[in-house]
C-alpha cells in the first residue's frame, strides 16, 4: 500500500478546491457547458442518460479498508447505495449530482482518494496487475513504477490537452493480468542481462472503432529512463496526433499511419535531444527508493501451507468448490490471494453495494492486513489471506454474496454499463450478462466448460473489451432494435489477439441461445477436456462455430 504524504494530500485538496470553484462558476453561468465539459471530464464527471456519472480513481487497483469504507460512504450519502468497478480498476457512481460533487470529492480526499484525470483527453489511471506485490514469480512490484508514473502524469502542464485519452498499463509477471497489449503505452517490467530493472515499452494498443494490439517500440528502457522516455512518446503524440477527427486521434492511429519503425525513430530522436539538454526526468536510485519506501508490506507470519483449519474444511464440498475456484497461490508460503467474484447469478457484473463494501472492509482488516485489490475483469481480491483463515473468510464472504465460485468461468462476465446507463451506447449489455449467468448458473457445467471469458460492450467504444474476449459481444442498432455481433477467439493477455466475427448480428432475445450453441460446439469439438475454449478456436478457426450457430438462423 502506498502511503500518501503531506505533498500528495495537499495536491488532492488543492484540486478539490479548484473543482469547487469551477462548479460554482458553471452554476452561476460564468462558464459555458462547452468550457466546463473539459474541466469536469478532467475530474471524472460524465453526463449519462439519467444523471451524471462520477468515476473515482483507484490507482493501480489498490485500496485500503479505510478507503473502501469511504467509497461506501459516498455511495450512501451521494448516490444510490452502490458502486460499479470498471475495466480500468476504477469505481463509478451513476447517480451523483453535480452540485454535490465538490463535497463528495472533499470526503474522498480525507482518505487520499481523488478523481483526477479519470476522464478527458489526458493520461488516465495507470493500471496494473491486481496481484502486484504478491504474485509468485513476479520480478518486482510494478506498483512502485505505476506510482512514479501516476505522479509524473498528474496535472502535467504539457500533456493535459492531448488529442485523445491516453492509457498506461504495467505488468511484472510472465502472465499478463494487466492487458498491457491493449493500452496506449504498455510496460513489461523485466531485468536485462546485467540484472538491471527496466521495461519493454509497447505502444499503440487500443480497442474501439479501430482495434490494435500494441507493438514494441523499445525492448529495454532502463528504469531510471522511464519518465524521460515516456515524455518523448507523449510529446511526439501531443504534436502529431490527429486533431481533426476524434475517431482517428488515439496514438494507435499515429503509430499505424507512420509505421512502428518511423514512429520509434521520432521518439528516439526526441528522447536523445531531451537527454542532451537536461536530465531533470532521469530518476536516480534515491528517488526510486523514496517511492518504494512509501509502499508498506505486511509483516507476514511463518505459516504452514496446509494448516489444520484447511484440513478440516476440506470435508465441506461447498467450501472446496469455492477454494478450488477463487483461491490462488501467494508468493509467501501459508498465504493466499483470494478473488471475490462480483458476478453473482442474475446480478449486474462488477457492482457492489455500500453494505458489501463496509463488510468487506472489515474482512480486509481481519484477514488481509487491511488491503483490497480491484481487477480489470471487474472482480475484487484480498491479497494477503492466511490459508488458515480461508474457511472463516469463506463463510463471511458467502453471507454477503461475494463468494460465487465462478471466477474465470463462463459466468464471470466483463460488461460495460451499456444502454441502461450510458449515453454512448447502442444497446444494453447488463441484461445480456444477467441472462448468461442464469443460463450457466450450474457450477458443475461451468467447471466442465473451463476458463472462458465473455466480454460485452454496448457500443463500438468497447469499454467492455469485447474485441479481446474469448467470446465477444458487441451491441449495435438495427432499425431501432438491439442487435449483437458475436466474435470468438480474442485474448487480452501476453498472447493478445482480436476476436473474429462469426456471422451476422443476432437480436437481443437470441444472444444467450447463440452463446449456448457456441459452448456446445466447443464441448463437442475440443481435443481434450483441458483444451481451453480459446485454444480450440485457435486450432479450428471460426467455421465450425459459425456452422453450428447459423445452421438454424
Amino acid at each position, binding site marked *: 500500500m502506498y502511503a500518501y504524504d503531506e505533498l500528495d494530500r495537499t495536491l488532492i485538496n488543492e484540486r478539490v478546491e479548484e473543482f469547487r470553484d469551477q462548479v460554482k462558476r458553471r452554476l452561476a453561468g460564468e462558464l459555458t457547458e462547452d468550457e466546463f465539459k473539459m474541466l469536469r471530464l478532467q475530474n471524472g464527471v460524465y453526463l449519462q442518460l439519467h444523471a451524471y456519472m462520477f468515476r473515482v480513481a483507484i490507482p493501480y487497483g489498490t485500496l485500503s479498508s479505510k478507503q473502501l469504507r469511504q467509497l461506501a460512504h459516498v455511495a450512501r450519502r451521494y448516490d444510490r447505495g452502490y458502486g460499479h468497478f470498471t475495466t480500468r480498476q476504477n469505481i463509478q457512481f451513476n447517480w451523483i449530482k453535480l*452540485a454535490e460533487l465538490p463535497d463528495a470529492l472533499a470526503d474522498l480526499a480525507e482518505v487520499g482518494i481523488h478523481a483526477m484525470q479519470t476522464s478527458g483527453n489526458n493520461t488516465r489511471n495507470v493500471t496494473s496487475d491486481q496481484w502486484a506485490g504478491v504474485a509468485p514469480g513476479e520480478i518486482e512490484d510494478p506498483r512502485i513504477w505505476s506510482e512514479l508514473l501516476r505522479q509524473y502524469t498528474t496535472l502535467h502542464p504539457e500533456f493535459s490537452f492531448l488529442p485523445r485519452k491516453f492509457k498506461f498499463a504495467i505488468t511484472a509477471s510472465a502472465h499478463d493480468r494487466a492487458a498491457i497489449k491493449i493500452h496506449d503505452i504498455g510496460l513489461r517490467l523485466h531485468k536485462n542481462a546485467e540484472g538491471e530493472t527496466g521495461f519493454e515499452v509497447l505502444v499503440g494498443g487500443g480497442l474501439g472503432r479501430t482495434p490494435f494490439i500494441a507493438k514494441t517500440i523499445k525492448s529495454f528502457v532502463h528504469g531510471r529512463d522511464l519518465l524521460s522516455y515516456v515524455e518523448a512518446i507523449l510529446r511526439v503524440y501531443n504534436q502529431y496526433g490527429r486533431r481533426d477527427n476524434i475517431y482517428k486521434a488515439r496514438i494507435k492511429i499515429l503509430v499505424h499511419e507512420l509505421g512502428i519503425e518511423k514512429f520509434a525513430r521520432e521518439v528516439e530522436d526526441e528522447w536523445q535531444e531531451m537527454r542532451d539538454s537536461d536530465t531533470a526526468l532521469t530518476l536516480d536510485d534515491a528517488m526510486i527508493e523514496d517511492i518504494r519506501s512509501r509502499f508498506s508490506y505486511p509483516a507476514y507470519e511463518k505459516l504452514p501451507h496446509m494448516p489444520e483449519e484447511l484440513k478440516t474444511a476440506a470435508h465441506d464440498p461447498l467450501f472446496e468448490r469455492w477454494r478450488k475456484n477463487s483461491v490462488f497461490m501467494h508468493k509467501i508460503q501459508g498465504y493466499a490471494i483470494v478473488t471475490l467474484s462480483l458476478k453473482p447469478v442474475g446480478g449486474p457484473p462488477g457492482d457492489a*453495494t455500500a453494505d458489501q463494501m463496509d463488510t468487506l472492509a472489515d474482512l480486509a482488516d481481519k484477514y488481509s492486513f487491511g488491503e483490497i485489490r480491484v481487477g480489470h475483469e471487474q472482480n475484487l481480491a484480498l491479497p494477503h489471506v492466511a490459508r488458515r483463515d480461508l474457511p472463516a473468510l469463506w463463510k463471511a464472504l458467502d453471507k454477503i454474496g461475494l463468494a460465487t465460485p465462478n471466477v474465470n468461468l463462463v459466468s464471470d462476465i466483463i460488461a460495460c454499463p451499456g444502454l441502461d446507463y450510458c449515453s454512448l451506447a447502442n444497446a444494453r449489455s447488463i441484461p445480456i450478462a444477467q441472462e448468461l449467468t442464469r443460463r450457466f448458473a450450474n457450477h458443475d457445467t461451468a467447471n466442465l466448460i473451463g476458463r472462458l471469458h465473455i466480454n460485452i460492450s454496448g457500443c463500438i467504444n468497447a469499454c467492455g473489451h469485447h474485441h479481446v474476449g474469448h467470446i465477444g459481444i458487441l451491441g449495435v442498432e438495427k432499425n431501432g432494435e438491439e442487435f449483437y455481433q458475436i466474435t470468438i477467439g480474442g485474448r487480452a493477455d501476453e498472447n493478445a489477439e482480436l476476436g473474429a466475427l462469426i456471422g451476422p448480428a443476432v437480436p437481443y432475445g437470441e444472444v444467450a441461445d447463440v452463446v449456448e450453441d457456441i459452448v456446445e460446439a466447443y464441448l463437442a469439438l475440443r481435443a481434450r477436456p483441458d483444451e481451453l475454449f480459446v485454444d480450440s478456436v485457435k486450432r479450428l478457426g471460426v467455421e465450425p462455430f459459425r456452422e453450428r450457430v447459423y445452421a438454424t438462423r
Partner: protein
Amino acid sequence: MTSPLEQKKIKITGPSVVTANRTWDGIVIYRTARQDWSAKLSDAAIVRTSDDARALLAESAADDVGAVGAYIAPVEIKEGGKIKPGNLREHIRLQGVTIDLPVPA
C-alpha cells in the same frame, strides 16, 4: 439508439420533443412550450417539422445554465394524446434502468 449526441443534421420523422439533463443534478428534463423545462414528459412541447425542431432546440440550447446536452428525441402520441418515449433509449431515460438496482430504491 444511435447516440443523438452525434446528431448533425436535424431531420425528424415524426412527433418529437427536446430533452436534456438538468445542470445541477443531472435529471432528465423536457422543453415545454413556455420556455422552461419540466421533468414530466407530459409537459413537453411537441414539434412535428424539422424547422420547428431546429427552432425549439436553438431556443432550448440558449439556456446553458439550466440544462446540459439538449437534443431532439422521438415520441409516440397514443390515443387520447398521451405522450410516450419514442425509442428504447428515451424509455430508459424516462423510466430508469431496465434492470433491478443492486439496492432497491
